[in-house]
Structure formats: structure tokens, C-alpha cells
């Protein structure tokens, strides 16, 4: 009995996959940068704008009510998807970067003082480094990195050592690395950090589109994600925070929605989650992110994880046949990300020549410069990254195209 593959089932949902670039059929392998959107998301956003757009909350009219319900429905879907204990633990943000900045500024400025340490890993995205550098510079605190091993996994010994040595106030780490693919043992890392008395923040940007997530099982204090990498729209993401920690945190942005009462004699703030959501929200984004999560669940997170795991193994094997090619990041547990370098060749040249053949890949440091420095990869890597709609055949064709590029450049 023939089984349909995941891509066979889902590709029809993605209109963009039928297009051409430079006269060649598009093969989109840049999903870690941003995933494409299923029709349900595109149409859901359209439907909102064409049928029930209105500013939400505090609106007594029907459209405002419809829009509020749909937007708050998006929040509920996120809460359920990552198993938060309530919707008030989900703060809508403009993305992961915005979410981490919220924590760095609201939690960090209230809790970090001179001499404190924030511990992160050398595989962090800039989004989980720079906000901490900024607040630490202000407070006289320091950002300390944990080492990454040759195979792209975290150096757990160094992690334990650093926890003990620095007694960090906060520990931040990626759930999955956007450059290496490595899936970190987040429950273990969280438990160790908690034992050391640290608050934990997990950057789930690359996990939400690929893995089942249970923040209560993990036990972390903060968890962030971004919509556009999870089949959702741009300009929207979320911060999960445990209720108690969010309640104790001062607000960050001021304005409408986040207040209870404003006067020139003194202003009081709203309850969760609104305390952290100033101004008119990205209503269509919240609605469409909810639809994206429905889409993921409709397809099945486990099916996506299994599919991508198989793709990574296939890609590793197929790329291994090209001489002079080295895969960067060979952890056993990986999301659908394959970074590589080719001896003597510049990733930019390879990426350009793949583009000419219709393949969208990303080259450079992938916003992980400290990792690239650490691994001695001054020009970065070429990264292919997969999604539910990526096929083995696309990977095979990418390998052929890459071989052609290598030959042209040699």
C-alpha cells in the first residue's frame, strides 16, 4: 500500500512553491530564515482584512468584538500549543527578538546589578546575545558564553562549570540552533540552571516550527517564539513567561492597552497579559499566527519532526559524497538545518550559483557571529534548511546543483 509522504500532502497548501526564479523552478531551502505560508494563513489574514477588521479591546461594536475574539483566540492557541498554564502567560510581541528585549529590559533592568552574570551559549543567535550585552553594560553585569563542541553540541561540562563558577542570575539558550540544527537538552539545561538558582529563558525560534513543546514539562521561566518561522506572518511572535515572574516584572513599553488608569498624577497598569502589550496590537498577525498553529497541528508536529529528521539524515549522506565538503553541526538531535563549507570556496559564491539554478539557500554567519568565530569560519557557512514541504528529491537536486557550483568555482 502506497503511503503519501508529508510533502505530497502539504505542498498544495503553498502557492509560492510553484513559482520560478531565474527561469528555474524554485527550490526553497531557506526555511530557518523564514518559512513559507500555507493558504490557510494567507486567506485567513485576507479574510480578516476584508471582512472584520477593527481595532480590538474596549470596543463596543460588533466588528471590534469579532476581531478581539479572533485575536485572543490566537493567544489561546499559542498557550495550548506550548502547554502554558493560561493565556495570560502569553504576551504577543513583534517576534523573538522583541520578546527577548522585553525580558532583558523589563526583567533584566529590575533584577540585574553590578557584578551579576547572564549566561548564554556560544551558539546563540544575536537576538539572545545583544539585548543581554546592552542591559549588562548598563548595569555593570557581564555576559558569559558556554562553549560549543566540535560536533555542534553544547559543552555540558562547561555549562555545569559556568553555573557553579558564575552563579548566573539568568541563563539563556536556544532550543534549537538556527546555524547548526542542534537540539539542546532543554529540560536538563533548565533543571541545572534552576538548581543553580538562575532564571531561564529559552529561545524557541527554531523549535516552534519543528518540535512539540511543553513549557511546563521543561520547567523554564521564559520561552520565546516568532511567527514567520512557524508558517505564520511577519511582525508577530510571543513571549511565554510563568505567571508569577510576569506579575513581578515592571512593564516595558507604555501606552494604550497596558494601562488601568492614566493621569498626570500617576498611572496604574493593567493585568496580564495586557500589561506588556502597549498600543494597537498586530491584530491580523495574532489571528494568522493562530491559524498557522492550527495548520501545524492539522499536519501533526510529530509527523513534521519525523519528516525533517529523515531529511537531515538524507542530506548528510548525500552531501557527504562531495569532495572537500564539510558539514558544520553533526549532533544526533537536529532540526531541519544543514550548514556546510567547501574547502577553499566562499559560501557567498556557492549561494549565488545555487540561486542561479533556482535554489534559495542562506550564506554567511546567520546572525551567529560568535559561533562562527569560535568555529573559525570567518566567511560563515552555506545553510540549507527544511520545512514540512521539503522533499528528498529537492535535496538531491540541490546536491547536484551544488556540485555544479563547486566545479564552476574550482
Amino acid at each position, binding site marked *: 500500500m502506497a503511503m503519501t509522504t508529508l510533502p505530497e500532502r502539504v505542498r498544495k497548501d503553498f502557492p509560492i512553491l510553484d513559482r520560478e526564479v531565474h527561469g528555474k523552478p524554485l527550490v526553497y531551502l531557506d526555511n530557518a530564515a523564514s518559512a513559507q505560508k500555507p493558504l490557510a494563513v494567507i486567506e485567513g489574514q485576507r479574510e480578516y482584512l476584508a471582512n472584520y477588521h477593527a481595532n*480590538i*479591546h*474596549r470596543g*463596543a461594536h460588533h466588528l471590534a*468584538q469579532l476581531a478581539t475574539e479572533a485575536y*485572543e483566540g490566537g493567544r489561546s492557541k499559542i498557550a495550548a500549543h506550548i502547554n502554558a498554564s493560561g493565556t495570560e502567560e502569553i504576551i504577543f510581541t513583534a517576534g523573538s527578538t522583541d520578546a527577548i528585549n522585553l525580558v532583558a529590559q523589563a526583567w533584566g533592568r529590575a533584577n540585574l546589578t553590578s557584578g551579576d552574570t547572564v549566561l548564554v551559549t556560544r551558539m546563540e543567535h544575536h537576538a539572545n546575545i545583544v539585548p543581554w550585552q546592552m542591559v549588562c553594560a548598563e548595569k555593570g553585569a557581564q555576559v558569559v558564553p558556554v562553549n560549543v563542541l566540535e560536533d555542534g553540541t553544547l559543552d555540558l561540562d562547561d555549562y555545569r562549570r559556568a553555573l557553579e563558577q558564575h552563579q548566573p542570575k539568568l541563563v539563556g539558550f536556544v532550543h534549537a540552533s538556527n546555524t547548526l540544527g542542534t537540539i539542546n537538552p532543554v529540560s536538563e539545561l533548565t533543571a541545572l540552571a534552576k538548581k543553580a538558582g538562575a532564571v531561564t529563558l529559552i529561545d524557541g525560534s527554531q523549535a516552534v516550527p519543528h518540535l512539540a513543546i511543553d513549557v511546563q514539562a521543561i520547567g523554564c521561566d521564559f520561552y520565546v517564539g516568532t511567527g514567520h518561522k512557524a508558517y505564520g506572518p511577519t511582525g508577530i511572535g510571543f513571549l511565554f513567561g510563568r505567571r508569577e515572574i510576569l506579575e513581578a516584572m515592571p512593564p516595558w513599553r507604555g501606552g494604550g492597552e497596558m494601562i488601568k488608569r492614566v493621569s498626570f498624577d500617576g498611572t496604574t497598569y493593567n493585568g496580564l497579559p495586557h500589561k506588556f502589550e502597549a498600543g494597537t496590537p498586530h491584530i491580523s498577525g495574532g489571528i494568522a499566527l493562530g491559524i498557522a498553529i492550527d495548520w501545524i497541528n492539522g499536519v501533526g508536529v510529530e509527523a513534521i519532526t519525523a519528516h525533517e529528521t529523515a531529511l537531515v539524515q538524507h542530506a548528510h549522506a548525500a552531501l557527504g559524497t562531495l569532495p572537500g565538503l564539510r558539514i558544520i553541526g553533526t549532533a544526533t538531535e537536529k532540526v531541519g538545518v544543514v550548514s556546510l563549507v567547501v574547502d577553499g570556496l566562499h559560501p557567498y559564491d556557492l549561494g549565488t550559483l545555487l540561486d542561479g539554478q533556482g535554489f534559495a539557500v542562506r550564506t554567511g554567519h546567520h546572525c551567529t557571529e560568535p559561533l562562527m568565530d569560535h568555529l573559525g569560519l570567518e566567511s560563515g557557512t552555506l545553510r540549507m534548511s527544511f520545512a514540512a514541504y521539503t522533499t528528498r528529491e529537492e535535496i538531491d537536486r540541490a546536491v547536484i546543483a551544488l556540485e555544479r557550483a563547486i566545479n564552476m568555482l574550482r
Partner: protein
Amino acid sequence: MSTELIASRQNDVIEEFALFDEWMDKYEHLIELGKDVPAIDAGRKTDDHLIKGCQSRVWLAADEGEGGTVHFSADSDAIITKGLVGLMVRVLSGADAKAIAEADLHFLDAIGLHQHLSPTRSNGLASMVQQMRLYAAALAARRA
């Protein structure tokens, strides 16, 4: 017992509103109820009893009655909200604490006014219902 009381009162309200097909007629009736509502005692219409919605304000007073029952009285500065809080009081007041705390309040939904219960509507109604339940739950716990 009280659970049935609450259920039958809800049915009464639903039947009463079934007379009105039209949105505007329903509101006309709600407004009449709002005008009639035995408002809260003047002496209790104080900030202690105020629930500040963003759109309209609600006052709520709760008293323990005999046998663990709870008696509510309420008011609002907006007539429609006042009609709604009056309905809420009519359905819940005098029932026993446990039944109030656990009541399945479906009547607003059934008469097509559930949107007023949305917390984002900020008329104070949702907060009021929450406070009624909290008061009742606390009382029930004390007596248990």
C-alpha cells in the same frame, strides 16, 4: 437544590427574552429592566463596591444570608449594563454559595447577549460575575 434554582431562573429569563426577535426590541426590554432595577443602597454605592470597567462602572454588594446563601445587589452608571447586572443578580441572588461558585451561566448566551460578558468589552460585567463567584467560593470554603 440551588443549582436547580439557578437553572430555572435562567430559563425564566430566556423565555422572557424569547418574546423579542429583533435586536432592538431585546435592548428595549433590557433598558426597561435597567430602569427598574432596584439599585444598590445609596450608602453602599461607594468605591469599596466599585468595579471599574473601562466603558461603564458597576457597583456590587454581597451579603451572607441564611444557610450559606448569598444575597447580591448591584448597580451601574450605564442603563444597559444595569439591566445586565440586574439579570445576573436575579439569577444568582439567594442561591447557596457553592451553587453560585459553580453555576453554569448560559442564559446571556442563549438570549444573544453573551458579548457583554466578554472581558475585553470592559463594561465591568465580566469582572462583576468573577467577583460574585469569588465571594461565593470563599464563603462555601469557609462553611465546608
